[in-house]
């Protein structure tokens, strides 16, 4: 058994090492994109079972975003929803024999964490402007600026480590048990791995949403605190 901390390149495309995680990611991407394309071809005004299931996924995602952030879900739906679906499918891909989930590798989880870090910046600048985003580091007061900067890095790092640790440990434990106790003993652990994969995907998506919302709200709060008091009549107008 190889070390879970190492990723072995199967082949290279120029300077790019193509690992099994990358291949699995491409397979997951192909399945998700082609499946979504095929499933969303005929969207009727009166939904059938297929369309109702698809709409249930979108509606549930919107509900989670609204309950987490209280904001309009449409700007965040694609990013948060795709993160959730990719991580979930990637986690559950471990059920297929011979397939190692991409989220059990450092690079994939680190890439997801980097994307969340960048998305926080993107949505913060988009929602509050560059000034508003930078002012979000001064919330609740400028003394917290170093801590907020540190926090913006560590919270993303914690997400990365959490997802990597849980998925990798699951895969590793199942591999060890399977090598020791045969074929049927790992099944309860694999069932537990299903739950773990779902929970980790949910946690990753919700935390990403929380971080984005926190940044956007902090920027808006900082701008409101900096703005002069509006006269009541003008405010009413």
């Amino acid at each position, binding site marked *: 058994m190889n070390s879970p901390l190492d990723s072995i390149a199967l082949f290279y495309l120029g300077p790019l090492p193509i690992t099994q995680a990358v291949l699995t990611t491409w397979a997951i991407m192909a399945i998700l994109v082609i499946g979504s394309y095929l499933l969303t071809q005929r969207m009727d005004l009166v*939904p059938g079972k297929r369309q109702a299931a698809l709409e249930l996924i979108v509606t549930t995602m919107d509900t989670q975003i609204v309950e987490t952030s209280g904001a309009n879900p449409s700007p965040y739906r694609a990013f948060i929803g795709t993160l959730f679906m990719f991580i979930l499918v990637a986690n559950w891909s471990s059920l297929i024999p011979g397939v190692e989930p991409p989220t059990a590798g450092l690079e994939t989880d680190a890439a997801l964490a980097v994307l969340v870090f960048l998305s926080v910046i993107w949505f913060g600048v988009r929602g509050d402007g560059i000034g508003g985003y930078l002012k979000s580091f001064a919330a609740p007061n400028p003394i917290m600026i170093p801590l907020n900067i540190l926090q913006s890095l560590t919270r993303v790092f914690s997400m990365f480590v959490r997802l990597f640790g849980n998925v990798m440990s699951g895969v590793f434990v199942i591999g060890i048990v399977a090598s020791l106790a045969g074929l049927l003993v790992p099944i309860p652990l694999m069932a537990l791995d299903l739950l773990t994969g779902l929970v980790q995907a949910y946690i990753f998506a919700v935390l990403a949403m929380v971080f984005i919302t926190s940044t956007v709200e902090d920027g808006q709060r900082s701008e409101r605190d900096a703005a002069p008091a509006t006269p009541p009549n003008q405010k009413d107008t």
Partner: protein
Amino acid sequence: MTIDFWGLGLQAVNVLILIWLLSRVFWRPVAAAIAKRQETAEEVIGSAKATQAKADTALAEATKARAGIAEERAAMRDAARIEAESAAKSTLAEARTKAEAILATAKDTINHEAAAARKANDAQASELSLKIAARLLERLNGPTVQSAFLSQLVDAIADMPAADRKALASDPKGIEIVSATDTGAEQGKVEKEIQTALGGTTEIRFTTDPDLIAGLELRSPHFTLHNSWAEDLKQVRKAVKDAA
């Protein structure tokens, strides 16, 4: 432990591409379908509300119109009742007038018919009474009655103008004395008194006519001197008829 930054970047790009692709082929179409249905549902609800408002308005108008129809119906019913009562009164009055006219005509007809019947009855009664009288007088026909009629005939001859009496007396064809029964033994006496009354010796023929009931009549080709109960009853009948 080493991190392959090329692999990290490749995975980040992969996930970004996946986010972009799924945004195109999954999230936007499904969200658009939901939004379209919500919009359609809102339009349908709005249309339904507008239709309901129209229906409420139409219902209010219909209720108002129905109330108006009820009032109009009541007014028309009252007018029709008044007209019917007027027509009934007019018809009743006309019928009463016609009935009274018919009644008056019937009364006149009845009166006329009653008068005619009474007249007919009177005529029948008078005829019957005359017949009864003729029957009764027929029984009284005897010598005394015959003698009385002879005296009356002689008196009548005496009352005639002298020229008429002379013309009778000199009539070459003679005269005819008619009696109801055969004069028998009285014939000579009758002939003598008549010739005496006429003042001549004209020929006298005696004949019998039962229709006279009783009496003696003098007849010539140009003159008749009635003297009988039959003639008296005839005069009575005429008088009764004239009186009726």
